[in-house]
């Protein structure tokens, strides 16, 4: 694939008519059993040396267990949630946890399975926020470069070769993956503006947010049209479960701990809204770094 970018001379932010991507499909799978044993020399050396540098003892039980790599988890999701004729412009891989084989890149294998010749890259080292950043980057790349379809692939990998975190917001209990397919809506019949009418999804990051203000701050930037139409609200395990949701009529789902990157997207995939007609708000937080992420989208517009 050859990705070419010419730096725009005018900032796309000043041109809101540029296509925005909307949530098109979303799928989630848990991979309880895999066949790949993480014993290749390079991956074993990287993992053990990282743990040594961080003074974390290696878990001797973890090494021989078979699991699934990111690429192996991506393959069935791509097959199920993308049609062979749906050409993809961009694919972003994101995770909080390391891959089962950290020395091997996942993107080249994923690229071979994807329709089209997309640009592919990965986002890591942001804990629960990596998934939101990946969606945000897909959206912003689309606005800058006119992409029509992007796929965000999210991963959790539970076979860590050292003791994993016990903190509820960081714990990882299973290997899982999610595919978030974003597409540019067709032009409005009335206005003829691609992606107009605010139907694209949006992501907002906020820093220095005290734990007890997480939800107040998270909902502040969301469109009144979304807040006032009984949205589905999905709250990640990084959000204090004792915080009330100050949105009348909201259908609230709180994600259980254990899937830091894919958990909230599992809840989105499983929500009882087959027509995707209701507005959706997804919130997650990192209580360690005092950051909050909000994803929202209006529902599919009902036409007379």
């Amino acid at each position, binding site marked *: 694939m050859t990705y070419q970018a010419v*730096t725009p001379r005018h900032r796309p*932010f000043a041109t809101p008519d540029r296509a925005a991507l909307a949530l098109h499909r979303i799928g989630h799978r848990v991979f309880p059993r895999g066949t790949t044993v993480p014993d290749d020399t390079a991956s074993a050396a990287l993992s053990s040396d990282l743990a040594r540098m961080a003074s974390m003892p290696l878990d001797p039980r973890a090494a021989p267990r078979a699991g699934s790599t990111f690429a192996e988890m991506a393959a069935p999701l791509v097959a199920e949630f993308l049609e062979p004729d749906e050409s993809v412009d961009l694919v972003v891989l994101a995770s909080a946890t390391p891959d089962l084989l950290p020395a091997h890149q996942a993107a*080249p294998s994923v690229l*071979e399975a994807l329709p089209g010749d997309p640009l592919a890259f990965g986002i*890591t080292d942001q804990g629960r926020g990596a998934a939101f950043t990946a969606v945000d980057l897909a959206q912003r790349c689309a606005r800058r470069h006119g992409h029509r379809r992007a796929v965000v692939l999210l991963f959790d990998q539970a076979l860590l070769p050292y003791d994993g975190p016990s903190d509820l917001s960081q714990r990882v209990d299973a290997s899982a993956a999610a595919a978030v397919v974003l597409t540019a809506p067709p032009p409005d019949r009335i206005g003829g503006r691609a992606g107009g009418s605010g139907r694209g999804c949006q992501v907002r990051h906020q820093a220095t947010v005290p734990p007890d203000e997480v939800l107040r701050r998270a909902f502040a930037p969301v469109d009144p049209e979304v807040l006032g139409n009984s949205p589905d609200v999905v709250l990640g395990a990084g959000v204090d479960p004792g915080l009330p949701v100050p949105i009348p009529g909201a259908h609230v789902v709180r994600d259980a701990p254990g899937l830091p990157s894919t958990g909230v997207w599992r809840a989105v995939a499983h929500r009882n809204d087959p027509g995707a007609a209701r507005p959706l708000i997804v919130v997650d937080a990192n209580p*360690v770094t005092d950051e909050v992420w909000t994803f929202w989208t209006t529902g599919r517009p009902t036409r007379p």
Partner: protein
Amino acid sequence: MTSLVEVATHLPPRVPLTTHGPVIGLTQVETRRYRRGFGFEHICWDPELSETDLMLAAAAGLAGLRGREHQVRYLIRARTVRFPSPYPRSPLDDVRRALGLRQAQAFAVTEHACASGLLAVDLAGTLLDTDPLPDALALVLLGEKAFSKPAQLMPGVAVMGEAASAVLVSAEGAGDRVMSFTTRTVPLPNTGPCLNSDQYAMFGDIYPPALADVVKSAVASAGITLDDLALILPHNVNALSWVKTVKRLGLPLERVFLDNLPRMGHCFTADPFLNYRTVTESRLMRPGDYYAMTSVGLGATFSAMVLQH
């Protein structure tokens, strides 16, 4: 238009390859081959420096960051090795706190291996272009610790060094302007820091034409010609590979700045920016000059960015 406001570097002590080679497992014969055949004489190397210290040392050289910390909205780490610390530890978050970048969201860009650096600058431009704050900045950190055997040597390609770079990026500021960026991934499945012999053979075959193609493409996208390039600031790998590549470009080898290769080693994603600092300190470019930065990542990703000084 995306601009490099300032580029700073940190160069750890230079260790002769004759003493460093045995430390990373090279025999005497192999050490001689990497010196005489590939051009590596010294390697920047500091085993006492942590990942966090390395990034902070590079950022410490950014005079333009002081007093503007509140404007930094994005702290982006370009990574060759995808996972820099045991989950959930994050040296990058330690850096964010130490630099006082309270409003910045920090994350790593991966999957382009050593070409992730140029991608990170392009993504920084995308984020800034679409940020509602007109004076927002991004800080991109490049280079990493060669902490493990698989990250210390690319057999037949390069000896890895630990010099690092910090780049302050703006959407509309003064500084070197990014004119275009081209990247191409030719999938070599299951690749990472280590390739097997078949993968190396395939990588060697596609390397010169693929790299030449992305340079040509970036130059064309920038609206200039190859002759307009004052310099190519490359990734510091095997000098012989550049002989083949410039032949395809029709450029003299002198147009490629290779002076740092024998002095630093291949410093992961940082090389083009380390070379930028040396070139600008030596006044080898004049205001208005066009130049190209290049990087190649195992996997395999070929990238070129054209800028105007």
